[in-house]
């Protein structure tokens, strides 16, 4: 269980809040889509949760524990983060995934750490790339490596900043299916920033709309209503179901 309570953030005191009083909760094994226009504060929210940006107010509880009171390593054992476009790392796939064990390292990696890295690589289907440099891989493979690195952290909460932005359509679906499968298997909570509403409604369980630095709506499938989407994205849409798959069809020409 992840609880975010009243998170606020400002770059400096004179400017307004980039994030104002954001709260939500997320069950184990569930995926949350963070939605909103460019500049709504989605990336800032995720960075605030992981203390990469220091929150002005508010707290983040993972299984009832306030993670922002923990040391960096302790918190990194609870929360993993995959930044947007982290591709060009000039290290081997194995070393990159092994980096996920960093929060657990006392003096050096143990045999157990190496085995965990190897088993995550195996479960992500990256066996053939173990000794290749990440910078030589395609976008889809590099994204998988970053995901594998985060999973090697054995986190309770996984934060993904636009994991599908550099992927072709097939890889977008594959990446989100993998995330969903892992979330359920390991009962990890996942927060995903997405721009594609169809991917969000298809693969996520709950939805958080950010607008003007605040939560506009939060909830299950019911908040993905045409009214909410129109208000947040300033765009007319239809929400329908095709062969049991939820679909959001935009009509950008219609003035609202």
């Amino acid at each position: 269980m992840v609880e975010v309570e009243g998170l606020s953030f400002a770059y400096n005191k004179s400017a307004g809040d980039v994030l104002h009083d954001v709260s939500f909760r997320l069950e184990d094994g569930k995926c949350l889509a963070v939605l909103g226009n460019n500049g709504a504060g989605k990336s800032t929210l995720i960075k605030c949760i992981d203390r990469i940006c220091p929150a002005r107010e508010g707290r983040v509880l993972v299984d009832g524990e306030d993670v922002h009171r923990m040391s960096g390593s302790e918190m990194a054992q609870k929360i993993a983060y995959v930044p947007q476009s982290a591709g060009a790392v000039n290290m081997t796939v194995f070393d990159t995934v092994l980096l996920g064990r960093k929060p657990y390292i006392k003096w050096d990696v143990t045999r157990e750490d190496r085995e965990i890295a190897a088993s995550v690589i195996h479960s992500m289907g990256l066996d053939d790339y173990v000794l290749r440099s990440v910078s030589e891989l395609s976008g889809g493979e590099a994204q998988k490596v970053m995901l594998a690195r985060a999973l090697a952290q054995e986190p309770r909460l996984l934060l993904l900043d636009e994991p599908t932005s550099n992927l072709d359509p097939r890889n977008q679906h594959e990446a989100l299916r993998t995330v969903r499968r892992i979330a359920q298997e390991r009962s990890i909570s996942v927060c995903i920033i997405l721009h594609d509403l169809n991917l969000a409604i298809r693969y996520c369980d709950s939805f958080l709309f950010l607008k003007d630095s605040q939560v506009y709506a939060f909830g299950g499938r019911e908040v993905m209503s045409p009214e909410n989407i129109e208000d947040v994205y300033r765009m007319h849409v239809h929400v329908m179901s095709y062969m049991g798959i939820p679909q959001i069809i935009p009509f950008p020409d219609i003035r609202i």
Partner: protein
Amino acid sequence: MIKDKGTQLEAYERHTLKKRAALIVAALAAIAAALFSAGVGSITIPAWEIVKTIFGAGDAQQNTVIWGIRLPRVTAAILVGAMLASSGAVMQCVLHNPLASASTLGVSQGAAFGAAVGIIVFGGGVVNSASAATAVTVNDPYIVTLCAFVCGSFSTAVIIAISRFKRDIGPGGLVLAGVALSSLFSGGSTLLQYFADEQKLGAVVFWTFGNLGNANWTELAVLAAIFAVSMLYFLLNRWNYNAMEAGGDTARSLGVNTRAVMLVSMGVCSLSAAVAVSFVGIISFVGLVAPHIMRRFVGNDYRCLVPASAVAGALLLILADTFGKWVIAPVVLPIGAITSFFGAPLFLILLFRGGKTYG
């Protein structure tokens, strides 16, 4: 094709062994080069005679030459090369800049100005003879080193401030800032020399060439101590450097206090550079080039790269010094000039292909 995960682990462990083997080969090459270099000079001494003398079985003449002249020189080359190269590797990591090193960012030049202040203003050194090997004695190494560290740190502080407040400056921009700092400090050194008396002027000019022959065993002990401390710090942080290589936000999400690691690492690097500069003068490019050579062999894994860079730096400086002793013997060319001659073209090559590989 799905393989058993065990074979992947084995493949990785073979890969790790290969990197260690590369490190050992480089270390053996450095030792061989050191023995050869110690034999080159006005009297040529074969390598096995040197080994014999080190273990106390040499004759009186060999003892004098080897312990008094050859070994201090080669030890200085090893320590200074290793210090400059390991701090170069660390600077490149914490600044996310493949062109970073003490000499390209103006830290060495700052330290040189500081040392000149120490020698001229505080009277820390004098010219004592015309012999090339011992032309300058720094008779108060502590004040000279302290001044060098203060001024070198000034460059470091400016570089850190620029990289923090102007994040989009890029690798080239930071090096331009280094060029600006270098000319600022060169100007300062020139002014100091202009007003210095003849004897001190000679001391400073000769010393800025970069000369390994200056070092005596006391100074070498100071060098070795600083090197040991900096190496220990770098190795304790090897996993932090690996995390930072993957990007600042990723490193922070892995629990690394990136700001603290960056500031302390840069402090340790400027101390290393300042100590190296104040004992042997400005030696350019070794700190930049040695880590890049080793990245080709051991990759960007700082567990291996830091010691490998140190070994490569030592090897490069020994080779450069041997070349300087041999090329127009019996004249010994200053080491600073040699490394600049060979380093500048390598630096240009890195500039042309650096952005593609490490940017």
